[in-house]
């Protein structure tokens, strides 16, 4: 029997670190958003893995909650990104450094 759970957790850790690296490395707003999604997915994957041991399916249920929240978060983030782009004419986060309106 292959230890699915451990491999899954390795993958989750890897996704988390990839997401972190993407958030730091990339300068584009959308890329940062993608990194956030990866981190959320890593967390969800871990929850699902451990939910296997839970007859109450708590992990799964919270995964679903987290997915829905992620959808809401992306929507708002994109609306903000759209506005930032409209104002600064760029989607590069380094150039968006003034608080002035």
């Amino acid at each position: 029997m292959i230890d699915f759970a451990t491999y899954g957790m390795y993958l989750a850790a890897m996704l988390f670190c990839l997401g972190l690296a993407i958030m730091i490395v990339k300068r584009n707003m959308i890329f940062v958003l993608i990194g956030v999604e990866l981190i959320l997915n890593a967390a969800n994957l871990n929850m699902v893995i451990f939910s296997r041991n839970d007859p109450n399916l708590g992990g799964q249920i919270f995964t679903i909650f987290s997915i829905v929240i992620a959808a809401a978060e992306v929507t708002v983030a994109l609306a903000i990104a759209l506005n930032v782009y409209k104002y600064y004419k760029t989607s590069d986060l380094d150039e968006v450094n003034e608080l002035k309106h």
Partner: protein
Amino acid sequence: MTPIDVAFFFFLIVTGLAGIGILLTRNVIHAAMLLVIVLLGVAGLYVLFRAEFAAVVQVLIYAGGIVVLIAFGVMLTNRPENGKLMTGNHLVLPALLVSSGLFYYLVQGIQLLDPIATQQVAKLPEDQVEYIGAAFMTDYIVAFELIAFILLVVLVGAAYLAKHHSRL
């Protein structure tokens, strides 16, 4: 290797490679499409970890909804340079240091876990969909209603934010 093992490692490897691909690519649209692969791979892993409902939700909301939103966002907020949407990298070294260090410690942590304990599979409810539906309406009713409320707020808020304003 049973077919399930093959499927498991297939999803595992595809997900990992696509994730690395996102880090390496400089094309935003390619990154979004690789994100779809990651999300579908994770959904496949959900199925193998006996969470079919979560997998379907993942496909429906993440792959079908969020990525499309992201792709739309890319198209609306980026100016293509000679046909491609490219973005620069910076702080490569610190990022690699931080993330690989974190990865090292996470792997250490995972190895500390009792492998036997993680393999014990509890007896899950027969009809997961029914069980989850009931749980939403009983044990998790507060969270459920909160989510509904948040979604409503987000719907209104995003529409307001994205509306054409001369000033915010």
